[in-house]
C-alpha cells in the first residue's frame, strides 16, 4: 500500500547511508525529496509543510546520538514524525459501562461504511461482544439489503425499522436493549460534508443515539480532499476516530497522514481486503515502519502466531537447516502459511524485499496448483523426488490437472529454492544476518522461469 512512498525514501536513504556527515544542504535536499514523495502520496499540502518543518528543525537541531550515523538519525527522525502524525499509540473502542455501547459510522458516499460496519461487527463478535447492526442508510437504494446480507454472513442481527434515519437509529438502540446486545453499530448514509441538510441529519442521529464512538470512514485513495472532509465531519459529530478503508490497493495512503494531522483523531481500524475478515486495528508505529520500507514484521509475527503450530514450525526449521526439507514439509508449512492471508500481503510485510518482488502480482491460484501437484505425489515421491520418472510424472500431472512441464518446473524450482533457503537459514543461525533481506548473491532470475522475472 505505502510501497511507493517507501521506495522513494529508500532511494534517498541509500544515498544517505553512504555519507558520513550531513550538511545543511543535504538536509534541504532530503526535505525536498521527502516533500515530493509525500505530495505524490496524496498527503495534504498543508500537512506536508508542517511535517517537513518539524523534520527539518529536528534534523538541524543537536540531537546527536552517538550510536547513530547522521543518515540513521534522519531516518529515525522521519520515522518518529510519521508515527507521531499517524497517531502515536493505538487506541481501542470505548466501552460504555451501561450497555449498549454505540458506535456511529459516517463518511462520504462510497468510502465503505456499510462494509466497514459489517467487518466491525464481525470483529467485535470475535472479541466476545454481542453487536447489533443498524441500517440507517435509507438514501442509497438497497443499502439496507446489503447490510442485512452482510449481517447474516457474520451472524449479527440487523435492525432497520422506521421511516427516517433518526427514528431507525433510535429504534436500533431499543432493539439492542430488547435483544440484550451490548454493542450497536449504526451505519449511516454517505453524505458530502458540504450538504447542510444531510449534515444536520447526521447531527440529529448523533443526538438521538449519543454514540460512545463516532468514526469517520475514509477511503485510502482519497486525495487532498481528505482534509476538508475530515474537518467538516469532525465539526459536525465530534469524531472520536477514523476507519481507513481499501488499504489493500496500491494507494499510497497519504490521506491517513492528512486526516490524522487535521482532526487529531486516531485511525483506529483499517480495512485491508474485500472479505469480511480483512479488518484489523490500525497500528501507527507499524504503518510508519512500513512507509519507511522497514517491513511490518510485527503484524507478520502476530498473524503467524495465530496460524502456525509452533512445534511443527520448529521441527521444520531444523529440517531446513539440515537440508532434509521435503515437499511434504513444504506442503504442511504452505498450508499453515495460507491461513495468514494472501501471499502478496505477507511478502509486503517482509523487510528488505526488493521492490520488484513486492510489487509483483501474486496469483493465489498458483499456490493451489502447487498444492495439487504435491498432493498428487506419493509419500515416497514427496520425500525423495529423485524417484520421479517419466511415468510418475505423467501420473502426477494427470492427478493434479496440470501438465508434465508444470510438474517438472515445480521440482526444479523446489530444488533451487530449498537450496537457497538452506543457505539462508544457515546464515541466520550464525546470527550475522537477521531477517534483513535476501541472502547475498541472491538472483531471482536464476530461478529460471522462462523469461525470468521481467515484471
Amino acid at each position, binding site marked *: 500500500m505505502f510501497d511507493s512512498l517507501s521506495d522513494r525514501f529508500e532511494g534517498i536513504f541509500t544515498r544517505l547511508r553512504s555519507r558520513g556527515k550531513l550538511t545543511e544542504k543535504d538536509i534541504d535536499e532530503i526535505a525536498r525529496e521527502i516533500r515530493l514523495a509525500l505530495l505524490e502520496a496524496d498527503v495534504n499540502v498543508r500537512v506536508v509543510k508542517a511535517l517537513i518543518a518539524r523534520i527539518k528543525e529536528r534534523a538541524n537541531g543537536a540531537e546527536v546520538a552517538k550510536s547513530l550515523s547522521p543518515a540513521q538519525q534522519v531516518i529515525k527522525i522521519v520515522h518518529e514524525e510519521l508515527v507521531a502524525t499517524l497517531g502515536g499509540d493505538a487506541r481501542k473502542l470505548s466501552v460504555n459501562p451501561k450497555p449498549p455501547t454505540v458506535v456511529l459510522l459516517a463518511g462520504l458516499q*462510497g468510502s465503505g461504511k456499510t462494509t466497514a460496519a459489517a467487518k466491525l461487527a464481525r470483529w467485535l463478535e470475535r472479541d466476545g461482544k454481542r453487536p447489533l447492526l443498524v441500517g440507517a442508510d435509507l438514501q442509497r*437504494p438497497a443499502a439496507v439489503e*446489503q447490510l442485512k446480507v452482510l449481517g447474516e454472513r457474520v451472524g449479527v442481527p440487523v435492525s432497520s425499522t422506521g421511516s427516517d434515519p433518526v427514528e431507525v437509529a433510535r429504534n436500533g438502540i431499543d432493539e439492542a436493549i430488547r435483544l440484550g446486545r451490548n454493542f450497536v453499530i449504526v451505519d449511516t448514509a454517505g453524505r458530502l460534508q458540504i450538504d447542510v441538510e444531510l449534515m444536520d441529519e447526521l447531527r440529529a442521529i448523533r443526538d438521538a443515539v449519543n454514540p460512545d464512538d463516532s468514526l469517520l470512514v475514509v477511503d485510502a*485513495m482519497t*486525495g487532498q480532499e481528505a482534509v476538508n472532509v475530515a474537518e467538516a465531519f469532525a465539526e459536525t459529530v465530534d469524531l472520536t476516530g477514523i476507519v481507513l478503508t*481499501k488499504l489493500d490497493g496500491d494507494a499510497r495512503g497519504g490521506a491517513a497522514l492528512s486526516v490524522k494531522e487535521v482532526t487529531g483523531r486516531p485511525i483506529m481500524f483499517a480495512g485491508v481486503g474485500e472479505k469480511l475478515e480483512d479488518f484489523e486495528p490500525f497500528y501507527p508505529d507499524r504503518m510508519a515502519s512500513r512507509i519507511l520500507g522497514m517491513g511490518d514484521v510485527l503484524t507478520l509475527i502476530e498473524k503467524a502466531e495465530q496460524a*502456525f503450530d509452533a512445534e511443527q514450525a520448529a521441527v521444520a526449521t531444523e529440517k531446513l537447516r539440515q537440508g532434509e526439507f521435503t515437499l511434504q514439509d513444504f506442503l504442511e508449512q504452505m498450508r499453515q502459511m495460507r491461513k495468514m492471508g494472501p501471499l502478496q500481503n505477507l511478502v509486503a510485510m517482509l523487510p528488505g524485499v526488493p521492490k520488484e518482488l513486492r510489487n509483483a*502480482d501474486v496469483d493465489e491460484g498458483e499456490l493451489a496448483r502447487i498444492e495439487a501437484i504435491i498432493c498428487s505425489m506419493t509419500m515416497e515421491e514427496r520425500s525423495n523426488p529423485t524417484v520421479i520418472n517419466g511415468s510418475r510424472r505423467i501420473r502426477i500431472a494427470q492427478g493434479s490437472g496440470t501438465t508434465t512441464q508444470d510438474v517438472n*518446473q515445480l521440482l526444479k524450482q523446489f530444488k533451487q529454492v530449498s537450496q537457497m533457503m538452506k543457505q539462508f537459514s544457515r546464515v541466520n543461525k550464525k546470527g550475522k544476518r537477521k531477517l534483513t533481506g535476501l541472502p547475498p548473491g541472491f538472483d531471482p532470475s536464476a*530461478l529460471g522461469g522462462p523469461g525470468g522475472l521481467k515484471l
Partner: protein
Amino acid sequence: MSESLAPIVLIGIFVLAAFLLVLPRIVRSREASRDGGATAAPSRPSTPPPLAEAAPAAATTEVPPELVEEIESIEVVEEAPPDEPPRLRDRIGKTRASFAGLLGVLRRGGKIDAAAWDELEEALLLADVGMTTTQSVVDGVKARAAAAGADADADALPDLLRAEITERLEATATDRSLHHAAEGPTVWLMVGVNGVGKTTTTAKIAKREIADGNKVLLAAADTFRAAAADQLAKWADRLGCALVRGQDGGDPGAVVFDAMDAATARRTDVVIVDTAGRLHTKVNLMRELEKLKRIVERTPGALQEVLLVLDASTGQNGLTQAREFAGAVDITGVVLTKLDGTAKGGVVLAIEDEFQVPVKLVGLGEGADDLVPFDPAEFAAALVE
C-alpha cells in the same frame, strides 16, 4: 540467535519460498495469455472459466419475466425535465472555497512574482492535479505570461490558467460523446474501483438514453457486493427499463452473456453493464473483467464504450487506476463522479495528459438527472474559480 527469532525467520523463509515458486509461473502464464492475442482465450486462465460462459442457459441466471415494454414514451415525456439539466458550474460554484491558493496572489495584486508561482503550484496540488502535471501546467502558464508581456499582472493569472487547462483538455479529444453502434445493440461497460459510484452512474446514463428515445437494458454484472443487483433493480424499476441479473455470488460472465442474448432478442438499443468494483491490484478480478469484455466482443461492433468511473475525491491513485484499467480493458472514457462536493477532480488533468483518455461525463449528485457532459472550458473555470 535467540530461540524466539526462529519462528519468524522460518515464516519469512516460507513466505519467500512460496512466493518464489509461484512467481515464475505467473510470469509464464501471463506471457502465454499475451501471446494468445485478443481473440483466443489464454491457454490457462488463472481461474478455470466457469461453464456458464459457454452455457448461457445455465440455471445460475434468470431473466426477469417482466419484459418491460417500451414505457419510455409515456414515462419519459412525463419526467422530461422542465428545467435545464444541472450545469457543472452551478453545482460546483455553490460551495467552492475557491481556489484558495490564488486568492493571496490576487489580493496582493501587482506583478507575478516567484511567490505567486509557488502559490499557483500549491493551488494545483491542492486540486489533486499531481506533481508532474502541475509542473507542466505551471510551465505552460509561464509561457503564456511571457507571451502576454514580460511583466504580466497577477490579475491575469486566473485567465491564463483557465486558458492553459482548457487547451490541454481540448487537445486530448474533441469528441466526448458516448458512441452508439451503427446497427445492432450498443454496449457500454462500466468499470472502476469500489465505491466510486458505478451503479448510480449506470442508472443515470440509462435515464439519459431513455430520454433520447432508446430502449435500454441494464446488466447487473456486480454479483459480488451484497445487494448490488437489488440496487440496480430498484433503479431499473424507477426508470422503467429492462434488467438482466444473476444470482448473488454467481458468474458475472453469465449475466453479460444473457444480457447480450436478451438485447438481441428484444432489439435493445443500449446495454449498460454495471460491473463489480474491483481494486486494480487484484489480478484475478482484472482478468474477470477482461473476460466480460471478451464476451461482449463476441457480438461484433457492439462494445462501443468502456467507461472508467472515477471518484472526484481520488488522489494520485487515480492515475494508477487509469493505467491498470486501460491495460486490462482499454478504457475509452472516464466518468468523473461526485464533483458536487469540494473535491476538484484535478487528477483527470493528469489522466488525460498521460493516457489521452477523455473525460466524457460528470456526476453531480445522487439524483437520476445529475449527470452532465464534460465540458473542458467549464471544468477549467470551475477548477480556477
